[in-house]
């Protein structure tokens, strides 16, 4: 059981999982009278792939939105980088090193793939408006440096051949990959993926799986993801949180979760008599 070790451990396949980087404490989120998330606590360790699963309407996306600042929980706190995180706007959360993708792709449709990925670098660009107007050389240098990172990500995700294509012309699967590229270009401390494989065919799913594993392996990126597909989740993740009707019903390694009776009931349904 990894939780007993404070400073991390090695996985069976030789990746290093570090200490806790984010901890959700007793999060409760309500929309009017509807309780979307009820008193949920869990943590995310550095370098791990952490999955949040559950049936439709379990509150998974709400949880992700709480982490990324789109929703403000009524109760509970988020501990991030060792301190309690004050209420933040989504753009502040993004600047604080948390990048995300969306369930329904949110790309800049009018821009090219490269431009989209470059927006992920905005937080790493320092020069102001006047600086760019009057100190062209410096701004240029910065642009080139950021461009290099963007190109590296583009190469890594194998979308070099569509770099200059407007996003609106791409098929769904590639759009998802571009969105991942944009999030990755920000070099986030935590990468949040909201159903990265939703709506994909088997081949695209396999590709996406491979990319997620490679990203985690190559860059050591901490990833928290939501997924419906149980098979995918079990293959990918180091630890899994299971939610149902806004409550946490399981938390542990894929094997532990798979053996959990409550989880089985939630997924397969249970006869009430």
């Amino acid at each position, binding site marked *: 059981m990894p939780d007993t070790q404070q400073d991390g451990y090695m996985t069976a396949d030789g990746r290093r999982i570090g200490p806790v980087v984010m901890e959700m404490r007793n999060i409760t989120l309500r929309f009017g009278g509807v309780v979307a998330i009820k008193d949920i606590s869990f943590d995310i360790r550095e370098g791990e792939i952490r999955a949040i699963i559950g049936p439709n309407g379990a509150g998974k996306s709400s949880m992700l939105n709480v982490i990324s600042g789109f929703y403000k929980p009524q109760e509970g706190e988020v501990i991030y980088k060792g301190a309690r995180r004050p209420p933040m706007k*989504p*753009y502040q959360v993004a600047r604080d090193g948390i990048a995300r993708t969306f369930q329904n792709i949110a790309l*800049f449709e*009018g821009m090219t793939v490269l*431009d989209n990925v470059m927006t992920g670098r*905005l*937080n790493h660009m320092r*020069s102001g408006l006047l600086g760019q107007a009057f100190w062209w050389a410096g701004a240029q240098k910065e642009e080139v440096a950021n461009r290099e990172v963007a190109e590296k990500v583009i190469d890594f995700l194998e979308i070099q051949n569509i770099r200059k294509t407007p996003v609106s012309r791409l098929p769904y699967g590639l759009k998802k990959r571009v969105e991942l590229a944009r999030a990755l270009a920000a070099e986030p401390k935590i990468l949040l993926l909201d159903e990265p494989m939703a709506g994909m065919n088997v081949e695209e799913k396999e590709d996406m799986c491979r990319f997620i594993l490679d990203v985690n392996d190559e860059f050591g990126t901490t990833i928290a993801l939501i997924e419906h597909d149980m098979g995918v989740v079990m293959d990918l993740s180091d630890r899994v949180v299971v939610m149902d009707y806004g409550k946490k019903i399981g938390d542990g390694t894929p094997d532990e979760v798979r053996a959990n009776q409550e989880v089985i009931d939630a997924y397969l349904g249970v006869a009430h008599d």
Partner: protein
Amino acid sequence: MPEQLLFAMEVTLNGLMAGVLYALVALGFVLIFKASGVFNFAQGVMALFAALTLVGFMEGQIPFAHLINAIFGTDIHHFGWHVNALVAILMTMVVMVALAWCVNHFVMRHLVNQEPIILFMATIGLAYFLEGLGDLMWGSDIKNLNVGLPQGINGWIDETTFNLFGYGFFIDNLDIVATIVAVALVIVLIAFAQYTKQGRAMRAVADDHQAALSVGISLNFIWVMVWSVAGFVALVAGIMWGSKSGVQFSLSLIALKALPVLMLGGFTSIPGAIVGGLIIGVGEKLFEFAVGPLIGGATENWFAFVLALVFLVFRPQGLFGEKIIERV
């Protein structure tokens, strides 16, 4: 060359110059529409307000003088100094940025995610508010704006064309300056949108709010910036129009002339605003020249709108606008 043809050429040239001024106002509309989806009805009044403020600073007028006099029974009007045109322009720009911040902070920020028609109504309100504020601050009399731009007939063109054709073209120096300024402005705006970090952020916000937030862009910052840029364009338009025909409240009506320009060029296209402005400018001058005498003149008042109407029927997205295709 026959006299008629030469005259038509002169009219066309003058039309092009007038079109540049229409395009300047239309540009302000396009900028805000592209970046925030708001059709800013107040753009014309912003140009008026900018021109009023500029004249006020240059002449050393005391803002709200009438109000102060009415309340305290004083009789003050001027500080008694004059400000250099360039300094006054910079001061006016500061005012326009402050205005942009206020518009976002007190109006637009509270209307995020509302229907476009609601945002549009808000800008109509803003237009009337600004008109009243301008009146209250600087008075409603017609003012002369002279920032030192050359005015009057361009002697060189007059002479050259006279030597060539035996007929001197009348081209106003101010119109030539306006054209150069407009071209420079468009180049700067395009460079800003395409090659700066803020420009990229602006395009991102225009495209998708949620995605923009997720990469760390502050919407409020971008909106203030966009309104500031629109204020800057309004200032340029205000200087040009004010120099040409004096700073008066009918200036805000040029916003109405920008509407047909936008329908022609498309609401989302910067080149469209330019080309649309030129077509309207040339079109209405030529129409007045060719058809006007046959039907009793004064065609310039309605020609642009009829042209826009024709476009609405046959090409609703304008010449350069994005075609909207709904998938079923």
